């Protein structure tokens, strides 16, 4: 199964993830801070965050790269997953909040809530929250996708209404009356499953978990795109109506990957929240979703590994550029990076690399085939 699923890039990717999942926690916990090999906790948190972003990018690549659904609102599913996890973490605070209310989170006391709103019930249980992490984004994606795909909303129209979706959610979550902490969102978490979220061990565990989630989702995506379903998706991307005339129910296929991708984004959000310590409506901002799409484009659309790589590179660039003397100019660098990547590497980093390899191979083949006068072979 796995052998069929993974190409060489995939193997490298999975190996790196496994190595990171083992080495990073060891270097973080088992080495002394003065040792040159030591990885400081903040770096672990940072890497963990990148992993979550990579997972988000992966989920976008699945629908955009393979099914041609450009969602400019995928941040919404990420944020919803994050909120589900955040609600669990809030409920875990218990009486340790400033107002020491047994059930109500601080912001509710603050806003004069007398009792817990109904949609907060159950979030004190981890399994429930974990379920919601998948279910809430999945359900929203299902309803939204069902409506949109059935009415054959495609292309930019779809992109723009996904944007409208996340924008509407952002405005909603910004409202204090909404019951999710308004602009401040959810923060000041204490425990997850009884472990202190700040503790080094917990952080390492969350990091490993993120590696596992990313690796698992990657395998899942690979399995999908290498199956016949993957070919159907590409068919849908390139000539949707032709697919219909072949008898494929296009909307079911789209709905399937869309919901799956939303769930993956939800998982990414859920892992993200305990690692960065806050979830707020800013995550719904359309610009966040657009940025996530850009990670995919930078890494290479339709390559999966590229999506993850793009998320890493762009965010790493962001982290480095926003500190020190570069700080006032970092937007120049980031903007420049995007322009240069599009101009010089239209297929994204991984895509360009693959193209280059394929082209070299084709040239070699062509050179070999030449004497026999075979039919000219196309690239790729």
């Amino acid at each position, binding site marked *: 199964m796995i052998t069929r699923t993974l190409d060489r890039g995939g193997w490298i990717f999975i190996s790196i993830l496994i190595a990171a999942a083992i080495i990073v926690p060891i270097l973080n916990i088992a080495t002394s801070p003065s040792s040159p090999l030591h990885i400081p906790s903040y770096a672990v948190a940072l890497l963990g965050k990148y992993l979550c972003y990579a997972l988000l990018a992966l989920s976008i690549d699945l629908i955009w790269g393979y099914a041609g659904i450009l969602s400019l609102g995928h941040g919404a599913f990420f944020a919803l997953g994050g909120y589900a996890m955040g609600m669990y973490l809030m409920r875990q605070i218990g009486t340790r909040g400033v107002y020491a209310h047994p059930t109500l989170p601080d912001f509710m006391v603050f806003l004069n809530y007398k009792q817990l709103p109904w949609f907060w019930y159950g979030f004190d249980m981890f399994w429930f929250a974990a379920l919601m992490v998948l279910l809430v984004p999945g359900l929203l994606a299902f309803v939204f996708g069902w409506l949109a795909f059935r009415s054959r909303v495609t292309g930019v129209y779809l992109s723009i209404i996904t944007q409208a979706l996340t924008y509407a959610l952002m405005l909603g979550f910004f409202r204090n009356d909404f019951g999710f902490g308004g602009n401040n969102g959810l923060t000041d978490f204490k425990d997850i499953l009884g472990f202190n979220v700040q503790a080094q061990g917990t952080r390492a565990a969350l990091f490993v978990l993120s590696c596992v989630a990313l690796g698992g989702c990657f395998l899942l995506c690979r399995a999908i795109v290498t199956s016949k379903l993957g070919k159907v998706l590409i068919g849908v991307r390139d000539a949707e109506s032709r697919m219909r005339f072949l008898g494929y129910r296009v909307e079911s296929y789209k709905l399937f990957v869309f919901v799956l991708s939303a769930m993956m984004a939800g998982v990414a959000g859920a892992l993200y929240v305990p690692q960065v310590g806050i979830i707020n409506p800013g995550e719904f901002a359309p610009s966040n979703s657009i940025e996530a799409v850009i990670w995919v484009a930078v890494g290479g659309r339709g390559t999966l590994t590229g999506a993850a790589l793009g998320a890493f590179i762009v965010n790493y660039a962001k982290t480095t550029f926003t500190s020190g003397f570069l700080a006032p100019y970092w937007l120049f660098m980031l903007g420049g990076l995007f322009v240069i990547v599009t101009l010089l590497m239209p297929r994204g980093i991984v895509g360009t690399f693959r193209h280059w390899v394929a*082209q070299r191979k*084709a*040239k070699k083949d062509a050179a070999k085939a030449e004497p026999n*006068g075979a*039919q000219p*072979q*196309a690239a*790729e």
Partner: protein
Amino acid sequence: MLEARSVNLHYGAAQALRGVSMVAEAGKITCILGRNGVGKTSLLRALTGHQPISGGSIVFDGQEIERLRPYERARRGIAYVPQGRDVFPLLTVEENLHTGYAPLKRAQRYVPEEVFDLFPVLADMMRRRGGDLSGGQQQQLAIGRALVMRPKILLLDEPTEGIQPSIIKDIGRAITYLRDTAKMAIVLVEQYFDFAHELGDRFAVMDRGSVVFSCGRDDMDEGALRRALAI
């Protein structure tokens, strides 16, 4: 008038033309024949500049034009009717015709009467959008549009494809008319042998990216031609 000299053309690593040479003369119809995928369209794309060539040269009116951009070649008088018609789908028929004004002087900016004489259906459909026309109507529009440019040379890529028999005859008459009256050079890519055979002054048969057989009407050996085609 237009001459290709051992033109090479690549799509990425794949070579589609291998040292193709051909000549189109004013007042002559040059037919290019060949099976599917042998490079006929590629040759026309090389001549019009849509695909850069990787070797050889193209000479038009005594000047090398292989470096010129497509619009510059069009302005010098090379008109192109592509395979698949490529009418502007959202422009009306009338506007489609008017796009041919670009290389013209202001005084010449009108649609010549003969366009409507040749394709009366266009006159009936002036307000309809190009993309809404039926396949055959689009083909007629594409030829008509090329004529608006008053070209010196007309490159036609399978103009009979999808056209009803009576109009094929009309197109045939039109081509002859343009050759004889306007002294236009015409390059005709065709699969429909009888049509080409009837019109052509020169013939070139292509296979796998090269010209494998060529002859003129006078020294034509129909058997050899058919044989070259059948490989």
